[in-house]
């Protein structure tokens, strides 16, 4: 039970990164269906960053490896986010179509890039060393504090980073002027424009930041959860996680703080099949359905309840052209 909860937290933060990233993006009025591709880009960039460290020196410091992984994951993800932003903000393209194109590109690019540019001889052992020993390094006291240590201290740095980012995002959105402006842009860009808010600037910032944060989710899956083992279907797995992240935004009612709890619930559902005793090999695919089925139930439930607090930003999905008025 304890290991199950610990794993649920570890898997949940992958959702948390993606979900918080998507919340930020949606708050600016942009529904980014490219999140699965962007998370993949994060995984690809993170692996490249780790590989570069090992190219520079055979035994790099843990701090450098983790930093480079995070940096490159955010960079790669933000690059694809920038493409999405440029197309949807500046060129006012359809957001759904652009997002899907980003996902197709990102998933394809990651699969190609990992196989052809990152994974060469010896790199997989380097990656798994980085994953197991550097990214998964527990906090002090993890062993000595019993169940508390195992549950809360025995995680890699990315787990804490995810929660810190979610809390910061929640505070910024709720209590700061920038957060208020961003919400205004998402609710009614024309009104925001009229009071002098830089609509384009806020949209770009939210999309780029959101993409960078979501990219960490991909990094987190490869380096933290998988311990640096890059399987051949990693792009497909992250794609599935990415769609769940987008759905999770609805579950969290566009609030990063709620996303923390929701992510852990989804993390538990996702890893359920590996922890239930006495199921046969054939039944595993049926258990894999659970998170997706639960998502559907959540979608239905929120649409039936239809509470005022649960609504998406009013201009979500619409492009803004000042001269259209």
């Amino acid at each position, binding site marked *: 039970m304890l290991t199950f909860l610990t794993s649920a937290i570890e898997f949940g933060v992958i959702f948390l990164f993606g979900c918080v990233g998507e919340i930020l993006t949606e708050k600016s009025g942009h529904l980014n269906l490219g999140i699965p591709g962007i998370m993949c880009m994060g995984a690809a960039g993170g692996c490249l960053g780790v590989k570069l460290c090992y190219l520079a020196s055979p035994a790099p410091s843990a701090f450098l490896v983790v930093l480079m992984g995070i940096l490159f994951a955010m960079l790669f993800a933000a690059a694809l986010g920038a493409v999405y932003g440029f197309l949807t903000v500046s060129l006012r393209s359809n957001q759904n179509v652009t997002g899907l194109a980003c996902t197709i590109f990102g998933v394809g690019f990651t699969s*190609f890039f990992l196989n052809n540019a990152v994974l060469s001889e010896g790199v997989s052992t380097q990656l798994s060393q980085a994953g197991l020993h550097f990214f998964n390094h527990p906090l002090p006291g993890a062993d000595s504090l019993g169940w508390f240590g195992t549950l809360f201290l025995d995680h890699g740095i990315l787990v804490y980073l995810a929660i810190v980012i979610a809390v910061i995002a929640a505070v910024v959105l709720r209590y700061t002027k920038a957060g208020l402006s961003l919400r205004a842009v998402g609710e009614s860009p024309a009104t925001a424009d009229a009071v002098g808010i830089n609509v384009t600037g806020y949209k770009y910032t939210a999309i780029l930041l959101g993409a960078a944060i979501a990219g960490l989710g991909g990094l987190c899956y490869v380096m933290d959860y998988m311990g640096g083992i890059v399987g051949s279907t990693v792009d497909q797995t992250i794609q599935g996680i990415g769609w769940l992240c987008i759905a999770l935004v609805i579950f969290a009612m566009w609030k990063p703080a709620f996303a923390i709890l929701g992510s852990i619930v989804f993390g538990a559902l996702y890893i359920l099949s590996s922890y239930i005793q006495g199921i046969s090999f054939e039944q595993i*695919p049926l258990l894999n359905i659970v998170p997706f089925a639960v998502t559907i139930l959540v979608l239905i439930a929120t649409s039936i309840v239809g509470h005022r607090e649960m609504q998406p930003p009013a201009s979500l999905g619409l492009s803004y*052209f000042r001269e259209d008025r």
Partner: protein
Amino acid sequence: MKNTKEPFIHITRREGLPLWKGLLIRAAAVLIALILSDIVISAAAPRSQGFFGFFGALFSGAFGTERRIWLLFQNTFLLLGVAVALVVAFKMKFWNLGGNGQILMGCLACAICLKYLGGKLPDPLVWLIMLVTSLAAGALWAVIPAIFKAFFNTNESLFTLMMNYIAMYLVAFFISFWYPGGTGAMPPLTEGVLPPLGEGQMGKSLLPVLLFAVVTAAIYLYLRFSKHGYEVALIGDSKNTARYAGINVRKVIIRTLLLSGALCGLVGFVLTGSINRMVSTTMDGNMGFTGIMVAWMGNLDPLIMAGIAFFINFLTRGMAQVCTEFGFTSEALSDTVIGLVYFFFIGCEFFIRYRVHFAGRQKKQPGEETPASPEDGGQEQAPLPEDAGAKEAN
């Protein structure tokens, strides 16, 4: 009028661009995407064949042998079938992102029939049952989200996306149920499958080509000339207008998605019943997503969509050849290049819908620009003046 500083870029809406200009802009965008891919790939490839070797490989991969040409046409018409199925829903502004799942359910239903009925009943009867169950399974997978959309306005794009994964794991379950301890792959079945219509690859490819040519034409007529088609278009324009005109919106949403899903199921029927004779979790070939791009890029017009479906399959098959010749181990390169083509195609749409004026020049821009490096776009935005007098720049 205190503000005399004129913004560098000024954008206005553009109406009635001549067709040929629009086509020229799109062709230029796609060409730039391909040349860009060519340069990067030629530079990075382990066994580069040079700048023109890229295009040579592209064409030989798509048209090199008679078999390849038939495969190209087969895949084009399969993709066109999916795209047309999705258009039915798009006309109503219903984002059916569940094409993959609906195709897979069609495949699965067909495979179940083959597995349990093949060889036990006369073949034509098996074919009929296969056809009906495939259509029903695809329709079921689309109508579940449609019902909730119609009654509770549930978000259909996420709902259909989740249905994709449920379908995928159901397929995985049936495969591991039928072949326990296996590799997760299913051997082709022999009994009850649809016979080829002729010799060689042509015989196998003829069925999808003919079938989906007919389906596309029929759906075009249905949407353009039938009362149903009119209702669908009206709901797409405005649900309230449609309701006011006395249309039962819920009924039409459900009916339309039954059709959309059934058409995807039909693609699954052809994939499993005739082409592959088995089912796998990736048999949809991501056509549900590609079909959306085809439908959107083709402006929901079946003829343009056919051209785009052809071009995307040309790229897919051509890029496979490029991968082999240039010495890449992963075929995912084709998705990367196609993704790049999508970006440029989506971006160039801007230059068709809007006109860009640069400060100090009165000449109209013929829209030759394609999106420059996206990062530039992001950087340019921040320091723009915020004066209310300044026109929104780019």
